[in-house]
C-alpha cells in the first residue's frame, strides 16, 4: 500500500486503467487538491508536508479500514466516536497499573473496542436490529461509561511510551511508524478481503444476503466478526491518537465518524454494500485528510471550513451517484 501512496504521479495510469472509475476520480481529486494547494503555497508539494499528511491520514486510515468492512456488508458503524475514545482511555488507564498494565495497555484498549464491536455484531446479526440504531446506541453507552470513568474531565493518565512510539516514532528511517502501521493494517485488510473465505463472504453478503445464506455461508457469524474487527480497529485508532497526543481526551473520536464514512464512500465503496476496493479507501482517506489540511492552512475560519468540507463531500457523492449503479 505504501508505494501506491508515496509516489502518486508515475504509478497510477498503469493499474488504474483496470480500476474502478470512482477510485480513479478520487486520485484525480487528490492531484487537483495538490495542484490547487501548490498555487497557494509551494510548500504543499514538499516531501515534509506530504509525509506529515500521510502520517495524519494513518489514524483515519486505520479507523476507515474497519468502517469499510462493515460498509461492504451493507451495514454501518456509527459507534466510531466513542469506541475511538474508549480505546484510547482504556489503554491509558491500563498503563496506570504497573509494568503489567503498561505491557498490556495496547491489547487492552483494542479488546475494549472488540467487545463493543461484538455487542454491535450480536445486535445486527442475531437480534436483527438495524445497524444504524444499535451502533448509535452502543456509542451512547460507551460515552456514558467513559464519562462515568473520567468524571467528565480529561483523564489524567498519560499514554505509555510504547503508544507514543507507535504513533510518533520511526522504526524505518524516514517512514513514521503510524504510516507503517497503516500499511500493515491495509495489507492485512487486502489479504482478508481478497484471499480469505471471510472476505469473499463479506462481499457476498453485501451483494445478496439471501443468496449468500442459501449458499451455506454462515452469514451471522461473518457479520459478527466484521463488527468486531471494526470495533477493534476503531479502538486501535484511538490508541494511536492517544499516543500521538500523549494522552486520551474527551470526545477525541468525534472528528472521525463522518470522515471515516466519507473516505470509504469517496473511495468508491458502495454505501449499499458488496462493491469496493481497499485502494479506493486509501485514496478516500488521503483525499479527506488533504482537504482538511488545505482548508486549515488557508486559515479559513472554522465555520467556513465545516461548510466547505460538508459541501465538497456532498458534491463528490452526487458525482459518484451519477455512475451506473449496476445493482
Amino acid at each position: 500500500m505504501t508505494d501506491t501512496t508515496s509516489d502518486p504521479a508515475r504509478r497510477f495510469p498503469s493499474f488504474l486503467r483496470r480500476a474502478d472509475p470512482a477510485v480513479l476520480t478520487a486520485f484525480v481529486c487528490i492531484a487537483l487538491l495538490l495542484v490547487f494547494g501548490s498555487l497557494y503555497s509551494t510548500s504543499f508539494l514538499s516531501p515534509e508536508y506530504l509525509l506529515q499528511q500521510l502520517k495524519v491520514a494513518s489514524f483515519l486510515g486505520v479507523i476507515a479500514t474497519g468502517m469499510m468492512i462493515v460498509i461492504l456488508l451493507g451495514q454501518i458503524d456509527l459507534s466510531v466516536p466513542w469506541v475511538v475514545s474508549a480505546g484510547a482511555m482504556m489503554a491509558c488507564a491500563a498503563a496506570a497499573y504497573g509494568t503489567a498494565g503498561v505491557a498490556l495497555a495496547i491489547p487492552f484498549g483494542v479488546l475494549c473496542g472488540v467487545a463493543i464491536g461484538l455487542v454491535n455484531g450480536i445486535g445486527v446479526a442475531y437480534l436483527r436490529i438495524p445497524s444504524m440504531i444499535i451502533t448509535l446506541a452502543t456509542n451512547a453507552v460507551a460515552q456514558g461509561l467513559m464519562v462515568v470513568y473520567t468524571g467528565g474531565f480529561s483523564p489524567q493518565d498519560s499514554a505509555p511510551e510504547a503508544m507514543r512510539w507507535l504513533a510518533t516514532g520511526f522504526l524505518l528511517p524516514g517512514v513514521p511508524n503510524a504510516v507503517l502501521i497503516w500499511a500493515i493494517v491495509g495489507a492485512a485488510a487486502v489479504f482478508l478481503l481478497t484471499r480469505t473465505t471471510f472476505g469473499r463472504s463479506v462481499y457476498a453478503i453485501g451483494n445478496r444476503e439471501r443468496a449468500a445464506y442459501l449458499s451455506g455461508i454462515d452469514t451471522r457469524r461473518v457479520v459478527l466478526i466484521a463488527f468486531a474487527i471494526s470495533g477493534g480497529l476503531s479502538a486501535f485508532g484511538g490508541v494511536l491518537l492517544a499516543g500521538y497526543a500523549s494522552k486520551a481526551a474527551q470526545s477525541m473520536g468525534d472528528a472521525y465518524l463522518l470522515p471515516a464514512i466519507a473516505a470509504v464512500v469517496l473511495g468508491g465503496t458502495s454505501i449499499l454494500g458488496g462493491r469496493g476496493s481497499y485502494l479506493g479507501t486509501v485514496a478516500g482517506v488521503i483525499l479527506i485528510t488533504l482537504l482538511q489540511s488545505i482548508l486549515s492552512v488557508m486559515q479559513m475560519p472554522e465555520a467556513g471550513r465545516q461548510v466547505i468540507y460538508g459541501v465538497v463531500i456532498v458534491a463528490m457523492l452526487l458525482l459518484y451517484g451519477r455512475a451506473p449503479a449496476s445493482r
Partner: protein
Amino acid sequence: MAAPSADTAAFFRMEGVSKRYGGVRAIEKADLAVTAGSIHAILGENGAGKSTLIKIIAGVVAPDEGRMLLDGREVSFASPGAANAAGIACIFQELSLVPDLSVADNIMISDPPRRFGLIDRNAQRRMAEAALERAGAADIHPMALVKDLPLSRRQMVEIAKALARKPRILILDEATSALTAADVSKVFAVLKRLRQEGMALLYISHRMHEIAELADECSVFRNGRHVATYPAGSKSDNEVIEMMIGREYRHIFPPKGTVAAEAKPVLECRRLGWTDRLRDISFSIRPGEVVGLGGLDGQGQRELLLALFGVLRGMTGEIRVDGAPVRVSSPAAARADGIGMALIPEDRKTEGLMLPMSVRENLSFAALDRIAPHGIINRGIEDGKIEEMVRLLSIKTANPDIPVGALSGGNQQKVVIAKWLMRGPRIILLNDPTRGIDVGTKQEIYQLLRRLADEGAAIIFYSTDYDELIGCCDRVLVLYDGTVKTELVGEGITDRALIASALNINAGDGVPASGAAA
C-alpha cells in the same frame, strides 16, 4: 363496432391481444368477451397465460398488439388506476393491504372522501361499512387494524376494497385460496348476488368444484392461446383436461435410468408440516432416482424444497438421511458432509448469484470450505475446480473473472448448478431450474441431471413445465394444497394424469393408457 359475434350482451371484449416478455410468448392473439351479469371462469395450466391476461385487463401491463373494447369504444389502460376508473377492479391472490392502517383506511385508500382537502373520517367509515356489508363481511369492524385480522378476514377486506370502487368488471385471481370453508360459501353468495346486480365477474381458480358451482361460462387457455369458450356444464372434466393438454414442442430427453430395487433410501421425510403451507408430507428417495414435484404453481412445492434445505423455521416432522434422523437447521447444515444437500434456488438473480461478482467468486461460494482449508483461499485448488466445472457444464464465459451478470441466462443457471456440483452433493434439490432459459441449455441440464442420478445422486426436481416432469422423472409427487395428493410412477406419468391430479379431480380410467405406448 361491427363485431361479428352475435353475443350482443358482451360490453367488454379483447380482440387479438398479444404480449411477449423478451422472447417468451405469454399470450398470443387472445380473444375474450365479457357479458354483464355473468361469471366467466378462466382455466389453464401453469404458464397458459391466465395471469398475463388479467394483468392486461387490469392495466398492470400493456399489450403488444390487439385491442380492448369497452361499450364498443376502444380503450387502453396506462395504469391500474386508469383501469379502475373505467370500472375494472381486481382482487389478486397476494394481498395488497397496508397492515398498519385501519380496515376503513385500506378500503378507501385510492380515493378517500375529502372535506376541505382533509380526509373525512366519518364519511370514510360509513362508506367502508357499506362496502363490508356488501362483501358479506359486516362482522369486521372498520376501525380495526388490518394487521390484527386473520388471513381469511383480510381477504374479505380485500374483496370489500374492490367493491368500494363500484366496478362493472370484478376480477378474482385465486381469491378464495386463503379463505375458510365458511367464508368461501359467504363469498360465493356475494358473488352470485353481484351477478344478479349485473356485474361481470372474471373468476380464476384451480378448484374445479368452485368453477362448477359458480361459472356461467368457461374459457380455456393453453400456451398463451385461447382454446375454447363454452357454457359451464357442457363439458366433462375429461374433456376440459383434454383441452388443457398439449404443447407445441417436445424436448429431447435422455433415457431414464434404472434404480437398484434393493438400494436403501438416502432421504426419507415423515409427516413434514410447516404452518398451513405444508401438511403431512411423507416420501423417500433412493440414490439414482429423479423425483419430480408436480402440481399447479404455489401448492407448497417451493416451501417443501426450502424446508428440506433448512431455510424454514418451525417445521414439524422428521427428516432422515441414510436412515438416521437429522436436524437441518440452516443451509450450512444441509450442505455439511453427513447430509450433502444442494439447492438450486428458484430465482437465480436474487437467490442463486451475486450478479456483479465474478464467475469465479460465484462458483466458489458454496464450496469455500473445500478450496480454503484454513479460511485462506488456495488459488491453485480454486482454479482447478473452476476449470473442471466450466468444462463439465460447458459454461460459456470469456474468462472466470468477468461478472456473472454478463453471461446469458442459461449460462448463469449453469453457474448456479456448477457451484453446488463443486461440493459433490448426494441430494440435489432443484426449484424450477429451467425457467427462462434457452432450449439448448435446458437439454444440457436434463442430460446433466440424469448423469448425476446415474452416478448415485438423489434428485428432487420441481418444475412448472409438465413436459419436463414427464421426460425427466422416475416418479412425480403431485402436490395440492400443501400435501402430496398423488404419486405417479414410470409410465403413469402422463399429461393427462399430471393435469388431473394437479386439479385434484379423478380423471377416470384413461391414466395408464395414454403414456408412451409399448
